[in-house]
């Protein structure tokens, strides 16, 4: 982020507020913005979801195709996560191949799903070493107002839970499609919780103005058992050990709250 006078003015204001436990939009330091979730928003996709986190808006669609497995895991399906920061979402997004920000976003979402073993990839093998199902998770950012990571991870999980696979039977190495659908085998529910560090304080779910002035951010993804399955620090600043362990504890609590929004019952 290029530093400008406006950002510096805001930085002072935001930092002063944060030091007395307040934020510009009236939230407490570990409060999230309102989360709205819709699933099945794109009929053509095998699964889809749209998450609104305040004004941040992310849509995720999943597609399933047949493909080849990776050499080192010949009997497992393949998960591919991609993120597009489409130009309509922010004046700072430009058309073109994925830049480091969208690659990092996709890889953080990917890591949460993969490391928590959210998808039972071993159930997605058709013929070991030859044919497996490839699950494409495409993150589409529609409006950028900060904390794309948590919104994207939430939408990705919701879209996976919404994904339907066609029924099939394998006859002589050929796949025969049968009527009806079954849900994708989802075994875990990873939730990413991101904090920004401003003036040595941690604030959850930073919105755009806070992201512009933050020193650093940290994302901690927890699974359904409250174990940590992925961590990513970002930004040019650094954290103390105490801040990191504090973030891990809040991430677990917030993760439980957010998980209830996506996983019903």
């Amino acid at each position, binding site marked *: 982020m290029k530093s400008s006078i406006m950002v510096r003015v805001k930085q002072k204001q935001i930092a002063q507020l944060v030091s007395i436990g307040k934020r510009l939009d009236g939230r407490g330091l570990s409060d999230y913005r309102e989360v709205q979730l819709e699933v099945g928003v794109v009929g053509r996709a095998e699964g889809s979801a749209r998450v609104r986190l305040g004004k941040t808006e992310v849509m995720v669609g999943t597609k399933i195709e047949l493909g080849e497995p990776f050499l080192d895991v010949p009997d497992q399906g393949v998960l591919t996560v991609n993120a597009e920061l489409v130009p309509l979402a922010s004046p700072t997004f430009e058309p073109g191949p994925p830049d*480091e920000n969208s690659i990092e976003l*996709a890889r953080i979402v990917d890591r949460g799903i993969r*490391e928590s073993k959210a998808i039972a990839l071993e159930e997605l093998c058709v013929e070991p070493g030859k044919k497996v199902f490839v699950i494409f998770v495409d993150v589409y950012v529609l409006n950028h107002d900060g904390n794309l990571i948590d919104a994207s991870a939430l939408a990705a999980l919701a879209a996976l839970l919404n994904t339907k696979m066609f029924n099939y039977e394998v006859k002589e190495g050929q796949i025969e499609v049968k009527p009806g659908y079954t849900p994708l085998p989802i075994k875990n529910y990873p939730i990413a919780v991101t904090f920004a560090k401003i003036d040595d304080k941690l604030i959850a779910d930073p919105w755009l103005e806070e992201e512009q002035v933050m020193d650093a951010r940290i994302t901690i993804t927890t699974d359904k058992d409250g*174990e940590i399955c992925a*961590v990513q620090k970002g930004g*040019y600043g650094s954290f103390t050990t105490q801040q*990191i362990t504090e973030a891990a504890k809040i991430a677990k609590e917030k993760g439980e709250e957010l998980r209830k929004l996506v996983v019903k019952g």
Partner: protein
Amino acid sequence: MSQKKPEKLIDENDVRLDGRGLNELRPIKIDVGVLGNADGSAYIEHGKNKILAAVYGPKEAHPKHLAIPDRALLRCRYHMAPFSVEERKSPAPSRREIELSKVITESLESAVFVDYYPRTSIDTFIEVLQADGGTRCAAITVASLALADAGIPMRGLVAACAAGKVEGRLVLDLTDLEDKGGEADLPLAWVPNLNTIALLQMDGSLTIDEFEKVVNMALEGCKQIHALQKETLKAKYVTVKEEAEE
């Protein structure tokens, strides 16, 4: 040429495949000022990892629109040689390399006084010649030395080291096999002079308790690496001084 996967990575006496104990680092060898053209350079052998880093700058930023009015643009490129891994890696930057370049840049920037050189760029190039797990950490360790060798003013060196969980035990400095066969890997970079954490990533599965322990374990590793970094720099510049006095 494929490594056979051993049955056990750690034996019943807590001895690892390469003979190390649970909280022991691999042997590390560091050298600074190894390249002629670069303004600063360094080389590290961390276990089987072999990594070169070179720094060019501060110099005029190119392309010009990237120049930042009140500070230097610190750029870092992490790249793996095609022959550095078991199966040939395409020389084109992969998504992993792009992500690592980003997090490495961010971790180094917390230690560099970038506001001393407005409108310039400081470019750090990291080439992994041979990889065996923990390359991003070794890359940060060696890149911060190359920056120091280039005379870039810094708040301090950055030392990095990973820790994780393998076969139920918490271990320091994972090799590639341990990373792939283990339960969790947590790379961490530390700025000793500020006592802050400049890079932290994790994948796998750890309870909050284990997470805290692994972070502290990695910090202990960083402390040992930092001592080596200081030694290397001192040794180099003491010789330079002696030569100058002769």
